[in-house]
Structures are given as C-alpha cells and as structure tokens.
C-alpha cells in the first residue's frame, strides 16, 4: 500500500512503486483531469504540483510523491487558481482544451514563484507545455491578466 496526499485528501493505492503518478491519478484514483500526452516528459499535459512545484506526472514514480502534497487540476482552488481561471475565460484561451490542465497547473506554479512574471519568466515556465491548437499567445496574455488584473483592464 502506498499512502498519498492528493488535493488535501489521504488516499491509498496498491500499485508497484515505479508506477508513474500519472496513471495512479487517472486509473486508480479517477482523477482524469491530468492528461496523458507523450509519456516521456516532453509535452506537459500531465503537469501536477508536488509540494507546489510543477512536475510531469508521467515520469514521476508514485514513490516520489509519498510524504509530499500532490495537487491536480481538480484540487486547484486557491486565489491564484481563481485569478487564472477568470483570466482564462476572459481571454478565451482553450480550443480543444486537452492541454489546458497542464497549462493552468504550470501557470499556477509560476505565479507562486513570480507573482508578476515578465514575458521571459512566462516563456521559461510555460515552454514545457505543448499545445497543438496553438493557444500559446492567449496563455501568455491570460497569465499577465491573472497577475495584474487591474492593469490589464485599463
């Protein structure tokens, strides 16, 4: 049995230690908001937070999540998340939407680190998340808007 803390809840799973966190979330815990895109850590569809840091769940063995706080898109409900979601709607970011969990999770981790990120900081944090629908410029705009809601509105 492996004991995990996911979105502030204690969860137990019976899987081999090296099972990627992604599949534990999706197949064992029913948390399908975290997406599978590549399985090799190169698309960011599966970004979750481990103690607040953005990681690719597809290459994170579940054993690495023990004793850490795991947050997924379903559990992301703090002020930053609210600001991001509002900005995402305001800017109309998603198209197919498949990559968007990863985009929001990566953006949320960025805003904790840099509450008012520069363009360079946004690029550095978001370059890990691919979007085949090409929503990148809107992602950037929405992050700026979430960071400076009043400035953007003027």
């Amino acid at each position, binding site marked *: 049995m492996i004991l995990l803390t996911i979105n502030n809840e204690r969860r137990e799973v019976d899987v081999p230690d090296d099972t990627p966190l992604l599949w534990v979330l999706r197949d064992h815990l029913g948390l399908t908001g975290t997406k*599978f*895109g590549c399985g090799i850590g190169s698309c960011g569809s599966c970004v979750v937070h481990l103690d607040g840091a953005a990681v690719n769940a597809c290459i994170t063995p579940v054993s690495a999540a023990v004793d850490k706080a795991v947050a997924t*898109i379903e559990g992301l409900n703090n002020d930053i998340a609210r600001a991001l979601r509002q900005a995402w*709607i305001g800017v109309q970011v998603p198209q197919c939407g498949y990559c968007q*969990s990863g985009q929001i999770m990566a953006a949320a981790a960025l805003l904790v680190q840099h509450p008012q990120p520069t363009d360079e900081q946004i690029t550095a944090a978001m370059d890990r998340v691919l979007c085949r629908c090409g929503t990148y410029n809107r992602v950037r705009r929405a992050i700026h808007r979430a960071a400076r809601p009043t400035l953007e509105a003027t």
Partner: protein
Amino acid sequence: MARHIELDRRSFLKGVAVGGGLLVGLHLGLPTRAEGVAGTVVEPQSPFAPNAWIRIEPSGGIAFIVARSEMGQGVMTALPMLIAEELGVGLDQITVRFASAAPAYFNNLVGQQLTGGSTSVRDAWTKLREAGALARWLLVQVAAERWGVAADGCRVERGVVIHPDGGERFRFGQLATAAAAVPMPPGVFLKEPDEWTLIGTPAPRLDTPDKINGRARYGIDMRLTDMVVGSIERCPVFGGALKGFDAEGAKALPGVIAVLPVSAGVAVVAKGAYAALAGRKALRIEWDLGPNASLSSAELRRRFEQQFGQPGVSVRREGDPDAAWSRAARTLEAVYEVPFQAHACMEPMNCTADVRADGCDIYVPTQAQTRTQRMGMDITGLGEEQVRVHTTFLGGGFGRRGEVDFVRDAVELSKALRRPVQVVWTREDDIRHDFYRPAGLNRLRGGLDVDGLPILWKHHIVCPSIMSRVRPEAVVDGVDHTSVEGAANLPYAIPNIGVDYSLVDTPVPVGFWRAVGSSQNAWITECFLDELAAAGAQDPLALRRRLLAEQPRHLGVLEFAAAQAGWDTPCAAGRFRGIAVAESFGSFVAQVAEVSVTEGQVRVHRVTCAIDCGLVVNPDTVRAQMESCIVYGLTATLKGAITLAQGRVEQGNFHDFPLLRMSEMPDISVHIVPSAESPGGVGEPGLPPIAPAVCNAVFAATGEPVRSLPIRL
C-alpha cells in the same frame, strides 16, 4: 427590416418531444470531406433525415442537440448563436448536447454525420437561423391566440413572449407543447444583419469552464464499470502481418488480464493503462514484414521523380504552355518537395467500447459518427439501432479523427472479452501509425516576358491520393481533387497555364490533414510566384496585385494584410518580410511573416493575418482559429517531418517529431475583413498561407528559395 424567407418544408420537422415540449428537427447539409468530394454536400439518403434539433421543454429549458463533433473550433458556441439570434433568447439560455449517431428523438433519421471541411458554420448558417425563427413563430402564434391579439404585435425577449401592451407574458416553456400543434407556416422572417445582437459579437465559448477545471470528458477519460484498458503492439512496417507471438512474459505481469491477436496486431489488456503498456514491452512477437521492409524516404522520392519523365493527367490548361516555354524571354524551373506530416493530436487516439449480446455502446472522440457506427455494426453483427455512438470531447482532430481504426481496436477487444474495453494509443503508436499528409514532389516551370511579367505557369504534381483509399470512386480519370486543390485553382492571371497530376500511391497510409491539399499546394505555388517575381525584378506584393486584378477577395485580404504589416515601410535591421495569399474552404486569407535568419536558424517574429470568411458569426472564434492554423502550419514549416527507413516511420514522440513551443511563437495579429458574402470556413483556411509567407521571407533574407520543408538552411 426583417426579410421574409420561404421555408423549404423538406428541411424542417416539428413535433411534440418525448416528455412534452416543442421539438424542431432540421437537416444540416453535411460535409463529405472524409468520405466524399471536398466542399460538396451529401444529400440525405432518405428524403428527410434530421441531424440537429431544437428542443423547448415545458420547464423552459432550451436545448440544441447536434450530431456534430467538437474539436476546438468553437462549434458549440457558433451554432447555438445562430439559433439564439432568431429564437429570441440569450446564448446563456441554450444548452448544447451532442447526439449519438442515431438519437431516439425520432426514428427515421440516420443521415451522414461528419465534421470536417470547415463547413460547420457554413452549412448551418441559414438553416439554423430559419429553425430558430420557425420555433419562435410557432411559440408566438400560441401566445397571440391565447391573448386574442395579432401575432405581429407580440415581442420576444430572452425566452419570453410579451403582450403587445407590454403587460402579460408567457415563458416559452408554457407555450412549447401547444406550439408543436400549430401548422407549419410557408415562410418565416429573418433579421437583417443590422438587427443582429448576437451574430458578429464576440461570445465566450460555453465549454471553457469545464476545460479549465479538469471536468471536460475526453475519450481517454471515459470510465465504465468493469472497464479494462487495452494497448496494441502493431507491425512497425507498413503492410506487414503477424506471424506469431509469445504472451507468457506479458501474462505474468500484475494487472494483465489477456493477450490476444486483433486486426491491428497483438493486444495486451490490463486493469489500467500502465499495466497494459508494461505488458506490451514484455511481448515477443514475430512479424512477417512483408514487401516494404526496405522502403525509405529516398526510395519514395525516386519513385515520385520518375513521374517527371512522363506526362501527368492534365487538370488545367489555358493558352499554350509549351509554345510559351519556347517563346519566353526568361524561364525558370524548380522542384518543390513536401514530406509526410503527422497530425499529432494532443489527445492520443483512443476509443471505449461496450459490446453486449444485445447492443454496443461506443464512446469516442470522433469526427465521423456514421463510419464509427458502421464499424461497430460490421464487427458485432448488430443492427443500426443497437450500435450507439457517444461523441466525447475531442483533444484535437485535424482530420485524424475522421478515421475509425481506433474504433475497430476497441470494438474487437470488447467483443472478444465481453466487457467494456478502452483502447489507448501511446504517442509512439500515434506518430507511427497515422494517416499522414501526403508527401510529394512538384516540378514548376515559369516563363517571363521581356518586362519580367509571368506569361507561363506549369506545375506537375506528383503525390499519393487520399481518396484512392477513402473513397476510390472519387478519383475520376486519375485525378484526386484533394491532391490538386490549391494548385489547379491558381488565381493569377497568367495567359498560359498547365497543371498536371501524377497519382503515385505508396505503402504509407495518407489521409486528411488540416487544410488538406491546399496545405502544401499553397506553399508551392506562392513560393514559386515569389521566385518568378524575383527573376523579373518585381515586388512580390506589386506582382500579386497586378495578377489578381480580377480577384477582388484575394486582393482585399492581400491589401489588408500588407497595410497592417507595413509592407511599404522598411523592416527593422536584420528582419525580412514575406507575403502569401490563398483561398480554401470558401475563405480568403493573406499573411505577412516577418523573420530573421541567424546562423542558419529561422526565427519568425511577427505574423499579420487578414481573413475574408464572409459574414462572421463569432469573431473571437475566427481569430482563435487563425492563430491555431498559423501555429499548426509553423510546426510543419519549421519543425519536424515524418520520414521512413526500413519500412518504418523514424519518428516516435515529441523529441523527434517536435511541435512549436511558446518560446518560438511570433506575435500574431488577425484582421477580419468586413464582408457580406456567405460564411466560409475558418478551421482550415488560415493554414495554407503561413508556410509560403515564412519561406518567402527567408528567400528575401537569404536570396535562396526554400524548396523543401521543413526549412533546413
């Protein structure tokens, strides 16, 4: 004032919905992109086959039920907007539901259901407005009769009919069931464009909230009781076959439930995806690699090249190109090469099937409900009413999800195991077993007169045909029109034009890729036009202006994009501009790209895009689609390609088939050219101009034309 429109009675059906309320059914002309001839509309097989419904419930709920796929193009917002405008309700009052292939609202209704070819808004344009107006008319009749007043005097506002004196009101729900009994009117009034309050106004998409909180259900997110997950090892070589396999290693792994051969290869079925993937790695399979085991990209190129030695099938001939060739003051010849391209939808291919003795449910992100249903019927032997298709959200489509290979995987496995099975492809499966955009070779010949103006254009296209697999009867006299679209319809006024086509099929499966033929043909023709411009010492924009004098919509977007990009002002030091224009799917798009080239690296800084797609339903969706097309096209221009060695695709995941990332993004500005024409597509037309705009800018920067993609300097 509103305009009276006669209703085509065959296009609408009304009745009382199951459970009460008003139901208006209509048939939207559906595109045949993946099954028929591009841009044409399939006639329903029966005289009347509704595939969309407006349902007004006694409770007041208003639903738009549509047999369509949503793959990021905003259909869920654009289509209800058309209804809401004429029905007299707010967009927020309509809920959208997807119908399965054969919904139970009526029983005589299975027509073709397919999304593709950018026609979603185009064909729906008139019909949905008429349907909205019809429902409103029926509801108002009932209210007017109850009040004993003339229907003309009643107003409608946000789903409420208001008495002429402004006092009494009926909510739609109170009128709905009675409205179903009102006889059909011969016609309805449609608003004039200046009366619209919704159409043409940016509307937030209705599906956005669920896509940012993890709740939107894509195919891969389906979870059914007792469901197991299958993953399939496929022969790496196209055309190979299974000889035998040893399942012992896989079966010994925890979680693995079954290992069995299926049409596509050897399936490992397990309790979860990870166990299934682990099982695949433990398989020992012997393949019969078949006749293509040594096939390479170089070999395919040789096969294509041989065709230049013989004449192709003529698809367009004007003037006398051969005589012009010998008469021209200057001639130019170039060979342009396009590689295979994968779709790489962000959501890997998947399908969930639940086959039982008496029925089959298929949950799938698909662009082709009808083909899905047929595949289900073929495998299970069940009837049309027993095979139900449930369309989930699609994590990208781009033409890939008009195929049904993944449906076959899931239905076969569920049938064999008698339980719900979800088949999940890995990214490697997806990249290596796609239906690729066709590779091809193109020989261009041009001639200039003494003033440096083009008098001759010859284009020999050599490439595989999509239709010869998808719909062989659509290949007429050796011509697959999807191979020549964007080339045969060259818009330029050049007196001598010859466009020829040689169909060369290869063992590599090809299919519809965003913008289809135009996606590569616009690149070829727009780049060669710049070569001619340079050879004749003409400015690329000035030459286009001159040759497009008779093409107002091409010219309109060209001028718009050029002005917005500041074509006539010098670029910043080290920056260069390129311009291109293309028509596809009924829309016209011009783009100006601004690039720099440093040590062989191309950087695209800015893209200015102008689109004329006729009347615009939701401007923000148009802008978003242009941005999306530009990024998709830039990936094919700058990043990767699918190549073959030893009969196999050499790429497998995003490390060797890279996609454009945020750090490589240009600034993009999109300008919608005001137009009163009927709506064109927006999901694809933004793609064709981007590759030539970028390559023409690189040509301006380096003096060397770019004749193969992706750009490698």
